[in-house]
């Protein structure tokens, strides 16, 4: 299954990517997606970020399920 991945702010700058697609196995978790991202972008290793699946915060153990969008959320600083 296909998952769109979004990268913001410092993560976007560190990877040079704001949007990409991953092909994941059925039953994949957020951690599986993260492992693939770390292979592609070693620069992510030293970064702090949370995950969001379809606009809701998620953790590594969250099943991707039918979600279509995974976002890596660096520490927010709005306001």
């Amino acid at each position, binding site marked *: 299954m296909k998952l769109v991945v979004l990268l913001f702010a410092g993560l976007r700058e560190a990877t040079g990517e704001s949007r990409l697609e991953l092909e994941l196995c059925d039953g994949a978790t957020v951690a599986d997606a993260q492992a693939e991202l770390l292979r592609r972008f070693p620069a992510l290793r030293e970064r702090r970020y949370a995950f969001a699946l379809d606009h809701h915060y998620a953790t590594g153990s969250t099943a991707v399920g039918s979600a279509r969008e995974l976002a890596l*959320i660096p520490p927010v600083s709005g306001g």
Partner: protein
Amino acid sequence: MLAARFELRFSTAPIALDPLVAEVRSDGDGAVLSFLGVVRDHARGKRVLHLDYEAYPPMAEVQMNLLFEEARERFGLERALVVHRTGRLLIGEASVAIVVATPHRAAAFDACRHLIDRLKETVPIWKKETYEDGSAWIGERS
């Protein structure tokens, strides 16, 4: 007129408060509180030249709606409008406006403060500060 009304909006243009107040207020409200976050000329001990804001709007809307719901449960808030700038901002420009209207003022103060405090914790918006000698996305360094 007294219907609940909550909205988060992004803007690349300067924020004017008076039109927001007119949108939010209903005839049963006795208090309208407006918070503006404004770009300061210094931060973290450095002189700031400008800021750049980036957002993830669909998730920001979902997260902001959760905060509106919190404020409704905790303070009875029924009407609030949040406008956040994106793109480049100069010193003195408002980056965010939170306008709340309530029948009595205590709830307006409590709810507005809750919304800005929580917005800064969970809503996916990012700020990059540019100084004379470089720039940084805020919050990245652990």
